[in-house]
């Protein structure tokens, strides 16, 4: 923990906040609105709330909580498919903790479990493979989701299943890739984000080069950031410095973990078993081309979508749900019509209310309502 305490020093934070304020104030005056910096990754959102970082920032800079929580962006139809598999008499459905609470159109996996489906929480896909090994008469399905962060461990599990000849194991693949998502945010008409805090864990796998187009083409700064509170403040300061200099580029604040070229072994495993889907549906964002992956033909035997007949029905989010606008930073969670009323963590309507990394759940849990300083300054022109 000594290692960690180093990144939580309030005195250093204070210095950074002063620097951030010094840089952000003139940028804000130029724009006539706060500088908007999007943290793409749910892990960052979590740290920001957990350490109360938002409230430490000057009103001239504002964080936008992007679409980086893989649980939050899962569409209802996919959850329904997952529940359908879990309800199969012979199936054992396995997945990570917070994926169990995402609401489908009828129920979540957690609710399906309470009604008798065999749903088990695992900490890694290898645990799921272990369950398959000890239940040879059952079909064990791993509900795999997440960005490039969790993709390698799923890929390695598939390779292990193949090597060991375990054939009662399959993957319901909902892995998604980060780059097309950022691109979708950048191309959005409502777009106003000035710069990005790049995802640390994802970049550990893919490296920093895939972000180059953001600086080259869209002229926005990206700073790959660690998850400790000082990491986040320092990255924010780096983004502002770039904005100040008018010279956007890709910087790596998290170089103690993120290699420029990523992790070759992890990428190899991913490339071996996965291929891009032509398009993949995101909750709140609609369909994004080449944003999801599936098992390729060679590993089709491990594809739960081929092993089970699935309803695969696209179900629209409830009308009053404004998750998409929140994900794109167009409105703040508290500006959604149902926030805190019909939609609470106990009764989530949208996925952003489900995971602790979801912006709405985080806002709800860590403090309802706008920051007093920007009370009269809604984020987007399309805000309520």
């Amino acid at each position, binding site marked *: 923990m000594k290692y*960690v305490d180093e990144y939580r020093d309030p005195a250093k934070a204070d210095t950074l906040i002063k620097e951030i304020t010094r840089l952000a104030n003139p940028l804000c005056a130029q724009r006539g609105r706060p500088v908007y910096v999007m943290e793409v990754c749910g892990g960052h959102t979590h740290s920001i709330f957990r350490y109360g970082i938002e409230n430490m920032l000057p009103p001239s800079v504002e964080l936008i909580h992007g679409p980086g929580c893989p649980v939050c962006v899962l569409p209802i139809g996919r959850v329904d498919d997952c529940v359908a598999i879990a309800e199969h008499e012979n199936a054992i459905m396995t997945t990570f903790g917070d994926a169990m609470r995402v609401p489908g159109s009828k129920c979540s996996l957690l609710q399906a479990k309470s009604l008798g489906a065999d749903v088990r929480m695992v900490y890694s896909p290898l645990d799921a493979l272990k369950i398959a090994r000890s239940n040879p008469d059952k079909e064990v399905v791993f509900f795999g989701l997440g960005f490039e962060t969790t993709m390698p461990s799923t890929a390695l599990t598939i390779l292990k299943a193949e090597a060991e000849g375990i054939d009662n194991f399959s993957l319901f693949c909902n892995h998604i890739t980060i780059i097309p998502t950022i691109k979708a945010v950048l191309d959005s008409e409502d777009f106003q984000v000035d710069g990005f805090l790049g995802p640390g864990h994802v970049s550990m796998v893919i490296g920093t080069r895939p972000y180059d187009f953001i600086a080259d083409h869209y002229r926005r700064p990206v700073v790959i950031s660690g998850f400790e509170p000082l990491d986040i403040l320092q990255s924010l300061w780096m983004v502002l410095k770039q904005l100040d200099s008018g010279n956007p580029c890709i910087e790596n604040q998290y170089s103690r973990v993120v290699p420029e070229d990523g992790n070759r072994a992890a990428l190899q495993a991913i490339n071996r078993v996965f291929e891009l889907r032509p398009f993949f549906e995101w909750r709140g964002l609609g369909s994004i081309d080449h944003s999801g992956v599936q098992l390729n033909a060679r590993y089709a035997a491990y594809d739960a979508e081929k092993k089970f007949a699935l309803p695969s029905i696209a179900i629209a989010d409830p009308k009053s749900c404004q998750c998409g606008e929140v994900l794109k930073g167009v409105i703040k969670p508290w500006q959604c019509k149902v926030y805190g009323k019909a939609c609470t963590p*106990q009764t989530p309507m949208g996925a952003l209310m489900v995971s602790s990394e979801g912006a709405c759940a985080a806002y709800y849990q860590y403090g309802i309502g706008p920051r007093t300083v920007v009370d009269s300054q809604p984020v987007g022109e399309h805000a309520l």
Partner: protein
Amino acid sequence: MTTLTDELPEKIRKRSGKLLVPHITLAHGGGGKAMRDLIDDVFIGAFGNPTLNTLEDQARVPLAELARLGDRLAMTTDSYVVDPIFFPGGDIGKLAICGTVNDLAVGGATPLYLTCAVIIEEGMPVETLRRIVDSMAETAQAAGVNIITGDTKVVGHGCCDKIFINTTGIGVIRQGHQLGANRARPGDRILVNGYLGDHGAAILNARGDMHLVSPIESDCAALHGLISVLLAAAPGTRFIRDATRGGMASVLNEIAEASACGIEIIEAATPIRREVKGFCEILGLDPLYLANEGKLVAVVPEAEAATALSALRAHPLGQEAADIGAVLANGRAGRVHMQTVFGGRRIVDMLVGEQLPRIC
């Protein structure tokens, strides 16, 4: 410790001898000889005391004796269904005694008597049951309480998870003690008796397969001794609660809500072990919401806080006690805030559902 009356007939039945089979079967819940053997050998053998030994359908407690000890009877019940049943630092039996003793003690009561009802899944090894019951007996003895009546049921395979235990406790509250969540007042200090989250982390760790370098032990302990020390040092204590499921965060929210006051705690002052912090980092959990089985939160008037703290620290179960914050005069009613180590401020809300590990 109070002994029970000897007016009751000493009707100890003839022992039927040892349980000879290695596993519990449905017959052990059937009311016949097998059940008698189980009760005599395992339960009476471990818990034995004059009241229980009579094997009457009810325990009889002389009122005069209770009245001598205080002016109110305290009663509580709780069921224990923990998985796994053995974990670092304890087991379901120890938990079933400590939990109920603590539920009495936090109300200011002296715990006196317990009942014990067990539901056993058929197939449980007799040795396992013995270990649990012996652990209960040992914990009860150390806590100075007698188990005076009980019940045993055996259910078919799959109808319960190994063993469920219910304990009901009776205690007596001494005159003068008035504790209540609604009694917190602005300026009061919030004290805890040590590291938070150990039990929750130990259970999750034992359940999952996290292979931690330094294993975390449950803090499972009976707190009545510590509580009487606290009440003696700070007679004005407003409220005590053991921070079990839902962790410290839930207790603080209850206090804030019941007293319609705001509460602010200081993260830097809140004792949490490094191992537990690290464990929570990995899984994306918040230690403030992790369960404890030997930790209490006390609201103490400011004037008595320093004395209370040193009294707690002088007790073996309170060595790491800390003053972690205060009830606010100007806080938003019902809200709990935390000053983060980082200098920020955030709300600590009630937990929604169970804490589930994050995906990444």
